[in-house]
């Protein structure tokens, strides 16, 4: 227990035996349930309607009976007072110090309220992440992020400060200026979406800077699944000569998962969150490894707008391996492998957009950008993949396309029309990329 304490942010929690962690989770679930029941009109009604009250939570199995919440509910509460958060709020409005909102990728943005304590909690969750990824007080971390209305790397900034890192906010700078500042200051680490990390490497080369020469040792990716897709992760590591670590979190949930320096799957922070994986068809909770299901998640310590049994629609699976780092926090394999509302049927075949990314990014002759457009012609689905071939490989176009078609067919069981676009003509993204466009009438 607590061996090699220096690799853990909190050796007591991170190496706690799993049966004790489970016991802790039940106690903490009961605590947040009681808090929400007593302080949030939304939760009180939800639980009363289901015939449940705090005393009903005694065992892990009792948790499964608690009604779930979903994004539709989060949007719906916003139509009721107090403005703008709605009656899910469990603290007086004057205690709220932080406003953030979701990106609105799947609909109306959700407004998120946090008290100062909640904000400390965000930074604490991120401290577990950064410390596990090797960040120390000797690091100079650059944050190439717009410091805007989205939570994104705000909490990473505060966590890095908590660790004692020197934090350089790259807010309003453009990409070129950010790269030059990182080079000038000899930054050792930064965090961004995988799309932007790749875009930064491209820009660096364009202005005559080899990204590998900057001296970046570690990069924390978030916002997209890329850093858990082996071919994308390899591209980033090759481009920057740095280790790349994935992290998963969400505005309405918190920062719940992270890759450690062993880079083997992602740990879930079992001390601060309860992650349940639900079988999409049966609704049963999946305990066995390597079986996909959608995540239902509880944040134990987020007080202003509690997140209890939130149906995230993220598709994840438990790993069938342990991590050599010694953490007892459970591991999910491959990060978020899809979205329950994102895996779509094309020509009758289930398709996860991440599978296309894995194939495209495995081709070193292709640029980092691509786009997938699904349309319907008559009764038949049509799937078009737009790609860019890197300069110098144009003459091999026919051979590249044949190989790409073959590999896509093997990986996704689908045939694609492929369109080659001029290098750097497809859209570039600074935050979450929208590369999969389903244009079929629904």
């Amino acid at each position, binding site marked *: *227990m*607590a061996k090699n304490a220096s690799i853990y942010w*909190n*050796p*007591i*929690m991170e*190496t*706690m*035996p799993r049966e*004790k962690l489970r*016991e*802790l989770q039940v*106690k*903490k679930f009961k605590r947040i349930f009681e808090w929400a029941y007593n302080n949030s009109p939304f939760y009180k009604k939800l639980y009363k309607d289901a015939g449940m009250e705090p005393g009903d939570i005694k065992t892990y199995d009792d948790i499964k009976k608690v009604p779930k919440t979903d994004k539709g509910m989060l949007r719906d509460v916003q139509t009721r007072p107090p403005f703008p958060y709605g009656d899910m709020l469990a603290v007086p409005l004057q205690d709220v110090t932080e406003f953030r909102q979701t990106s609105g990728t799947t609909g109306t943005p959700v407004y998120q309220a946090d*008290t*100062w*304590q909640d*904000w*400390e*909690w965000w930074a*604490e969750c991120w401290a577990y992440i950064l410390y596990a990824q090797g960040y120390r007080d000797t690091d100079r971390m650059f944050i190439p992020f717009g410091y805007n209305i989205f939570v994104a790397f705000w909490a990473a900034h505060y966590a890095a400060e908590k660790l004692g890192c020197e934090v350089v906010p790259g807010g309003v700078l453009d990409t070129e200026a950010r790269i030059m500042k990182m080079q000038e200051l000899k930054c050792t680490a930064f965090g961004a979406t995988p799309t932007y990390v790749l875009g930064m490497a491209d820009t660096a080369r364009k202005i005559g800077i080899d990204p590998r020469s900057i001296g970046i040792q570690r990069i924390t990716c978030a916002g997209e699944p890329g850093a858990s897709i082996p071919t994308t992760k390899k591209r980033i590591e090759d481009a920057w000569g740095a280790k790349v670590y994935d992290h998963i979190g969400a505005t309405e949930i918190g920062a719940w998962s992270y890759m450690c320096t062993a880079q083997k799957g992602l740990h879930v922070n079992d*001390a*601060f969150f309860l992650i349940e994986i639900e079988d999409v068809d049966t609704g049963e909770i999946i305990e066995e490894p390597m079986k996909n299901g959608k995540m239902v998640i509880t944040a134990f*310590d987020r007080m202003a707008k509690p997140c209890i049994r939130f149906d995230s629609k993220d598709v994840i699976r438990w790993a069938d391996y342990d991590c050599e780092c010694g953490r007892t926090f459970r591991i999910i394999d491959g990060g978020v492998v899809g979205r329950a509302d994102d895996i779509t049927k094309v020509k009758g075949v289930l398709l996860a957009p991440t599978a296309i990314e894995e194939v495209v990014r495995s081709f070193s002759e292709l640029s980092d950008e691509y786009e997938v457009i699904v349309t319907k012609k008559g009764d038949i689905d049509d799937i078009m993949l737009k790609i860019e071939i890197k300069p110098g490989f144009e003459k091999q176009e026919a051979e590249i396309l044949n190989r790409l078609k073959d590999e896509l067919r093997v990986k996704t069981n689908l045939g694609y029309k492929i369109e080659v676009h001029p290098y750097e003509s497809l859209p570039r993204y600074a935050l979450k990329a929208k590369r999969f466009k389903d244009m079929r009438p629904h």
Partner: protein
Amino acid sequence: MAIKYNIDEIDAKIQEIKEAAKEIEKLGGDIEAVKKNLVRLRASTKMLELNISDVKLVM
């Protein structure tokens, strides 16, 4: 679990910080600079509780 750390002793000190915060609040009366800085102190203290005191839930 984690026997090299004395959880009870650390927790007792954390509770002392909370008690001290209450006393400072009482003594500070309506001084905003005291009230608002105590919000921050309490938030940090809460993180200590989440990291350490919560272990007592399963000891």
